[in-house]
């Protein structure tokens, strides 16, 4: 493939750029510097090397380390790299290499050293070079890509307003201009301090003290609002706290100054896609591009407060539990701070509490109630419902600090429910809603647009009461492959997590309503195959003892399925035995629910290693399913599918074959040929026949499976190549090597083209090609493929692995065909010894080996040994009842040949 030929270094920056010889030195220095506080790193560089190239590279890497906070990172990291800077840099294509301007003079300022670099600008520590005053300044040199003239014009217009902001908590804008090469720069008050979050965490500042720091920030914002200046980008990195504990809000109005979307010039209108904001902190208005008002700053203050209190951002979920992380919706509800804490891992919570000089319990308590109300009011998606000004918000925080009741009121459950429902009414093709009906019943409703969605919805609703069906649904999903593109997907997971929050944090009119909601959430989690969560919610709803017995039963069944699926098989069996007994006591022995319980018990038994018992149990319920007049096809299908796999796993191939045939009939009746369900049914039928050695019969379903998978998934798809490879192996067993060879050659070239030669599956694939080549009479052509396969397999899994052993056996046969009998003997003996350890005497693999070995002995004129081996094999096969197996025929024929001579 073309990208394989491309030099991966081409056009790359970074580690690949410095001479390889220096890599070790750069990396070692970089490693050391990482352990030092930023302020000591320059000293390390100075004393460690004279090579300026090396120093520059290390600085680059340190900058990358800084910028890469959160890059590739799990949900625990709350900072974003998707900042203003990056958005701007993106809009201008690849940013040009930024030269270090340290030492240069810009107007009356001398740049001392660079202190920060981002996609948008570099910031230098500077001082007046004309000695007018000695104060240090921060000089922000804006990256090329903004039209300098525009920036300057705009800057002049704004400057008067911005410089009027004189407040102890505002970092001032002092001056601005353009560099000789035309890049705009801004001169600002230099603040020597730490970002507010770092400052608070390092000094383990308690909640009340954090609130006082927050008040400083809020006052700065309120002051600016009185001057009609909006900050637009309030976030921790823009708030520095000095050693004296003074908070300074930086970059006032800079976002507006630099936002191309705000500019009148027509060429900038084309960039409307780029919005200057920090997504984590952006208000809904900013996200939609609606006019930004002071209410937007209030929103950002609310997010900041959330972050200061909890250590995480409300819209960047720190939860370590598996949740989908998706872009936040424009009007996402702010989660309750205490809820976010509850979902945080124990260790992280300890850490967060320690950074606030308190305990997890005390912290969670402190964040429930009034503080929570303040945060939620400030961050309401509707600007009208927020504090009317930054000042009003600060007043409320002050009221809290002085022990007075706050103005913010908890948003009512009804309000939040309405928002939740209203928000999702138009969400899209499929939305899971937790709704309350008039009678207090709870249902999970799935809305769908297309026919396929409806099909899926039906299947999902079934899945709610039968986990087994989920396997079936997954089969159906096979058609909508990630690499097929196409259908939009349900953000069900996200909706559900929000729904769960809502249920847990809302206040509901009665315990029964609450309990039913909890149960509904549990059911919905089960739909999504999130069984750990499902068990927790379902168990909680049952424990509450407020649900009437008739409804309890189906919840208990559901709990049983989730337990089994969560791997707690014996717990699941116990619950399900309870439900089957209860249903039997009610006279119900034929309902779908009852049958599903029985089916699940058999599955759980199988998972527990009780194969026999599982098959017995499954027989019972399969008989009942068959007896039902109106059993839905998918229930019957998934039942058959489940038992088919039980039978295969239990090595009952004959029975597996019967089940596969029945399954195919059902699939044919219920679905068109172009669905994966049908294709897989053919595949299963073929594989059960292959296991029985009925290769001739397997040919037809295997061909059909190959044809259908190619049509459904495309011939290049891995699924299709599996099906065609099975077909090739059948031809090989049937003594039709040229057919096998033609197919296998295709499989090899397709897989190498699509997956690359290094892929784990390629050695196996080339081994199969070697087999076909040898069988077709081209041992010399087979040899390089087989050698390659063995080398790679041994490297990946070891010389002793079963896979390597299988390939060595093939090599033994190859050597035999090439006439190297000694080499063949050595290999086959080695393989035989390993097989004896790995497999039972009747295992097919040992029989296959014995047939090969017998052939070798025969060629070596050691006829007696050959005959003994064959007799032994025949006996083993007979004992296993495998006289119908193709292998038995081969053994018999070989015996006949030897005896005839």
């Amino acid at each position, binding site marked *: 493939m073309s990208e394989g030929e491309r030099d991966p270094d081409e056009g790359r920056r970074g580690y690949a750029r410095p001479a390889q010889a220096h890599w070790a030195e750069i990396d070692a220095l970089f*490693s050391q510097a990482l352990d030092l506080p930023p302020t000591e790193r320059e000293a390390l560089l100075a004393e460690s090397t004279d090579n300026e190239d090396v120093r520059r590279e290390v600085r680059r890497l340190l900058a*990358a380390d800084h910028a890469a906070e959160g*890059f590739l990172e*799990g949900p625990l990291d709350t900072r974003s790299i998707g900042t203003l800077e990056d958005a701007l840099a993106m809009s201008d294509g690849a940013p040009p290499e930024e030269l270090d301007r340290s030492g240069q003079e810009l107007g009356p300022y001398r740049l001392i050293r660079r202190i920060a670099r981002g996609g948008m600008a570099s910031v230098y520590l500077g001082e007046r070079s004309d000695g007018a005053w000695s104060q240090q300044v921060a000089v922000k040199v804006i990256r090329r890509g903004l039209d300098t003239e525009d920036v300057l014009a705009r800057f002049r217009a704004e400057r008067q307003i911005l410089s009027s902001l004189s407040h102890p908590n505002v970092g001032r804008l002092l001056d601005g201009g353009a560099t000789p090469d035309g890049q705009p720069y801004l001169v600002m008050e230099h603040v020597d301090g730490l970002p507010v979050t770092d400052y608070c965490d390092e000094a383990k500042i308690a909640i009340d003290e954090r609130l006082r720091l927050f008040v400083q920030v809020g006052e700065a914002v309120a002051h600016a609002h009185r001057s009609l200046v909006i900050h637009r980008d309030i976030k921790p990195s823009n708030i520095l706290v000095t050693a004296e504990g003074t908070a300074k809000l930086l970059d006032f109005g800079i976002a507006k100054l630099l936002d191309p979307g705000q500019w009148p010039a027509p060429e900038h209108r084309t960039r409307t896609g780029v919005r200057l904001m920090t997504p984590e902190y952006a208000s809904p208005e900013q996200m939609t591009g609606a006019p930004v008002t002071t209410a937007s700053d209030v929103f950002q203050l609310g997010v900041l407060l959330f972050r200061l209190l909890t250590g995480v951002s409300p819209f960047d979920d720190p939860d370590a539990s*598996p949740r989908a992380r998706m872009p936040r919706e424009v009007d996402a509800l702010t989660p309750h701070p205490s809820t976010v804490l509850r979902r945080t891992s124990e260790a992280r919570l300890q850490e967060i509490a320690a950074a606030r000089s308190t305990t997890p319990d005390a912290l969670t308590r402190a964040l429930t109630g009034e503080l929570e109300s303040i945060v939620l009011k400030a961050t309401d998606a509707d600007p009208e419902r927020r504090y009317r000004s930054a000042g009003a918000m600060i007043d409320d925080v002050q009221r809290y600090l002085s022990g007075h009741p706050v103005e913010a009121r908890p948003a009512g459950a009804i309000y939040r429910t309405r928002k939740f429902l209203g928000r999702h009414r138009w969400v899209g093709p499929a939305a899971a809603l937790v709704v309350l009906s008039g009678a207090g019943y709870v249902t999970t409703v799935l809305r769908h647009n297309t026919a396929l969605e409806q099909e899926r919805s039906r299947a999902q609703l079934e899945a709610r009461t039968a986990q087994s069906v989920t396997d079936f649904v997954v089969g159906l999903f096979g058609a909508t*492959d*990630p690499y097929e593109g196409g259908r939009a997907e349900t953000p069900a997971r996200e909706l559900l997590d929000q729904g769960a929050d809502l249920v847990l944090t809302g206040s509901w009119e009665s315990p029964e309503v609450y309990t039913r909601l909890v149960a509904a959430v549990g059911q919905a989690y089960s739909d999504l195959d999130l069984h750990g969560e499902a068990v927790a919610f379902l168990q909680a709803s049952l424990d509450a003892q407020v649900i009437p017995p008739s409804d309890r039963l189906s919840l208990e069944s559901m709990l049983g399925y989730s337990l089994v699926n969560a791997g707690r098989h014996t717990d699941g069996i116990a619950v399900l035995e309870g439900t089957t007994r209860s249903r039997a006591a009610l006279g119900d022995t034929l309902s779908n629910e009852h049958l599903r319980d029985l089916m699940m018990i058999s599955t759980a038994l199988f998972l527990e290693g009780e194969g026999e018992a599982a098959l017995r149990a499954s027989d019972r319920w399969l008989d009942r399913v068959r007896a039902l007049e109106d059993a839905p096809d998918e229930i019957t299908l998934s039942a058959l599918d489940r038992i088919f796999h039980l039978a295969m796993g239990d090595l009952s191939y004959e029975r597996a074959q019967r089940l596969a045939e029945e399954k195919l009939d059902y699939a044919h009746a219920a679905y068109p040929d172009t669905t994966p369900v049908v294709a897989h049914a053919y595949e299963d039928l073929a594989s059960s026949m292959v296991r029985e050695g009925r290769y001739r019969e397997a040919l037809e379903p295997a061909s059909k499976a190959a044809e259908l998978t190619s049509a459904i998934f495309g011939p*290049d798809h891995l699924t299709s190549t599996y099906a065609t490879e099975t077909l090739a192996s059948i031809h090989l067993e049937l003594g039709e090597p040229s057919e096998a060879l033609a197919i296998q050659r295709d499989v090899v070239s397709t897989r190498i*083209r699509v997956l690359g030669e290094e892929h784990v599956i390629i050695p196996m694939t080339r081994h199969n090609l070697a087999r076909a080549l040898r069988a077709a009479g081209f041992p010399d052509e087979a040899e390089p493929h087989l050698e390659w396969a063995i080398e790679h397999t041994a490297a990946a899994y070891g010389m002793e692995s079963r896979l390597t052993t299988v390939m060595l056996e093939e090599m033994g046969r190859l050597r035999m065909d090439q006439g190297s009998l000694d080499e063949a003997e050595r290999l086959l003996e080695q393989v035989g010894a390993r097989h004896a350890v790995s497999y039972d005497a009747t295992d097919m693999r040992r029989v296959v080996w014995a047939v090969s070995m017998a052939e070798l002995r025969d060629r070596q004129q050691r006829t007696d040994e050959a005959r003994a081996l064959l007799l032994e094999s025949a006996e083993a096969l007979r004992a296993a009842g495998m006289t119908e197996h193709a292998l038995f025929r081969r053994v018999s024929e070989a015996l006949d040949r030897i005896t005839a001579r």
Partner: protein
Amino acid sequence: MRSGAPDPEITRLLVSAGSGDASALNRLVPLIYDDLRAIAHRRISLERKGHTLNTTAVVHEAYVRLVEGEQPEWRDRVHFFAVASKVMRHILIDYARLKRASKRGGGAVPVTLHDEHAGEEQGVLDVLELNDVLEKLAQHDPRLEQVVECRFFGGMSMEETAEAMGVSVRTATRDWRRARAYLYDALRP
């Protein structure tokens, strides 16, 4: 589609890996490959709209299905995660390559994983590109490759990663920062 029963063979290999048999880990790969692929496949289907794949969830789910019934120790669990991370890398690269292959002629559209920043519109990462860079990095220092496999492809915690690599958390964290900085430097737009 295939329901994986907890496999005693897997647990046995995990235990021997824990007692120092390095080849045991390699022998695990073919045993868990299909299940991981099936799980990843299903989750990608479920979460397609967000183009997200919660790799932690995939690996944990595979663990629950294939091992948990056998109740191995924490160390075994970490070894499983480490192998699963490696396999996940293969699987995701497969997906990306398949996607690229299926788009032949229509211009290469990389399969992407949003990195974890909610709302980050431009944070689209080309896993094939990441893979290329990672292979280069591995030539300099294999630990850099390992730490990225654990953290990014397997969604493992720092503690688990350190245990899997047999180094202190401090060292693992430093390795992670190094790897991340190199990758960021090479991959950012």
